[in-house]
């Protein structure tokens, strides 16, 4: 139930600094909140609103639009089984059914030990590798029922802890821009001039304008001769 920790607050400020407008950082900050707590808490949303200088209602509005943001606790491992068309043709629905039976929950539900949540998901861009699923947004391609059981068992014994972080952690590598290398971020109203390198166009534009003027003059002269 938490606002950002000091470390995450620092990260949040860093994220905000990359956008010309603070509100653009709302979605990345919601991800950060989900990474911290496993889901997006009300306190985190209030904190994000302060940081982005918008109302909490606006942050809630944005948060609830997106399927990945959970506003209530979910399993440590969220399993998304694709049942969309390419996967349906190759057993995606049967895979989901099998998983529901193995874990004894329906899609949308969480196991009583808080380990697994299953979702009946839309296309996850692995259509040629059907049937497929994601565990905390890490892919498993062309996976059979037995292999799913194997994956579940391996997660339970902690064998996959290195490959699959707990729910909420998306990128384990973050973008960092050293201050000295930053080209510069400014609100749009403060930028009035063309970027520096666009002056390189000037000789060419001038030459093209001159050529066009010459052409027009020649055409006019030809017209004059015809008269």
């Amino acid at each position, binding site marked *: 139930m938490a606002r950002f920790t000091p470390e995450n607050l620092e990260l949040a400020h860093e994220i905000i600094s990359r956008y*010309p*407008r603070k*509100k*653009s*950082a*709302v*979605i*990345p900050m919601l*991800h950060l909140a989900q990474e911290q707590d496993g889901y997006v808490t009300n306190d985190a949303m209030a904190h994000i609103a302060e940081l982005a200088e*918008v109302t909490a209602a606006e942050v809630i509005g*944005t948060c609830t*639009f*997106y*399927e*990945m*943001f959970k506003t209530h606790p979910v399993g440590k491992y969220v399993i*998304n089984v694709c*049942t*969309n*068309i*390419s996967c*349906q*043709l190759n057993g995606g629905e049967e895979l989901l059914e099998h998983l529901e039976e193995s874990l004894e929950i329906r899609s949308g539900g969480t196991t009583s030990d808080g380990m697994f949540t299953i979702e009946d998901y*839309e296309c996850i*861009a*692995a*259509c*040629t*590798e*059907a049937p497929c699923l994601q565990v*905390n*947004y890490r*892919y498993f*391609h062309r996976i059979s029922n037995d292999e799913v059981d*194997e994956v579940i068992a*391996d997660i339970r014994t902690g*064998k*996959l802890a290195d490959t*699959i972080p707990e729910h909420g952690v*998306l*990128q384990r*590598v*973050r*973008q960092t*821009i050293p201050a000295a*290398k*930053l*080209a*510069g*971020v400014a*609100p*749009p109203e403060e930028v*009035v001039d*063309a*970027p*520096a*390198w*666009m002056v390189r*166009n000037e000789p*060419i534009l001038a030459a093209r304008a001159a050529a066009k003027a010459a052409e027009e003059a020649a055409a006019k002269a030809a017209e004059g001769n015809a008269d």
Partner: protein
Amino acid sequence: MATNQYVPHAAGYVDNEGPKIVSSRFVHEDAFLLERSLATGGYEGLKKALTMAPIEVHDTVRDAVLLGRGGAGFPAGIKWGFCPPGKWPMYLVVNGDESEPGTYKDRLLMEMDPHQLIEGCLIACYALGLSQCFLYVRGEMALAQERIAHALNEAYEANLVGKNILGTDFSVDVVLHWGAGAYIVGEETALIESLEGERGMPRLKPPFFPAAIGLYGQPTIVNNVETLANLPWIIVNGADEYKKYGSETSPGTRLFAVSGHVKRPGVYEAEQGVTTFRDLIYGDNFCQGMKGDDELKMFIPGGASAPWFFPEQVDLPLEARPVGAAGSMLGSGAIVIMDESTDAVKACLRVVRFFARESCGKCTPCREGTTWEETLLRRIYDGHGRPGDLEMLLDIADNISPGPYPGAAWEAEGIEAIPFPPKQTTICPLGPSSVAPITSALRRFRHEFEAKIPQRTSIPVSAS
């Protein structure tokens, strides 16, 4: 697949015969690292572009007739020209929200060769004088986000991105941004809303292109990942070289994801215009035929939004114009093959359900219509359909997309093709897309729907 094969190398990509423009580095396990990229010609396009004037780079892209790979197929060079002159700053937003069912190519490009994409972004920014680039990656693609973050960190370190790139006066920041699960955010104005921290709902048109009014109200170029990934090659080799591949109106190559009932489903780089659907499905160099050598029943030529094609259309080339005239679209290069065992009602229901789930709810015909379409199809599929349901389905479809909906010809029945695109009463094309599977399936397989609707006899009621 087994547990230890988590994230296999370039899963699904098939390194077949033929020219490779965007997938040339996919054969290298470590192509996502700067070292490998530089060793295989990475950033040469950027270096060459920096020796040219920005407008010359723009001219090269226009001359190459590089068609957008995101869905609409609009020429990139022409779209770039829509920016109002002298209105600064301008932005680049990269559309990496790939979520159209059947589509699998942008994820490969982002996971396998992020430097090629970054180089493409830089070339676009240089050509148009764009102040900042936002690389919007779909939320669910954790690995792609990690690889791009890593690649950007390396590129900043090597002075390939950021301030005074390679010691020149060209400076631009590329910022990784990521979504959170919403198909509609792929629509370019919704993408911009999302990038502004809002609910990802499409904006009212006009203006039709964000090049006029986009991010923060400024001129903005939105391009697909694959579109931009083509730029380094085009700048290095020139427009004329590019046009040697493919056909005149659709030059170059494209990544096609062929999925469903085929022997060797996969992502193939193929020349546009000269390759046909038949080549892709049956060719030895591609999918090698139908799974179990079954008969082809129907196929989706360009992602779930595209009207279906049938065996009559397999000889069409993979080229935007003829496919559009034949009643569908090449869309995002996603080809879904279905054999004779496929239940047309079930397939139709699944695709419609997708659109009902993903409708953003901003306009009524789509929000209400897609939900009703799903409800009706669900009860028909479950065997509880009522007489008149099919007419009601078509009536709802007509409210979303008035008039005849695009569809393929069917010579045996004397049905002519209705060319793409459809009319719409909605803010964006998602609503009309939900009509595509319905009209496609009903035009051709009406009997399958009717067979599922129980025939009731009314109970006679006597007056006395």
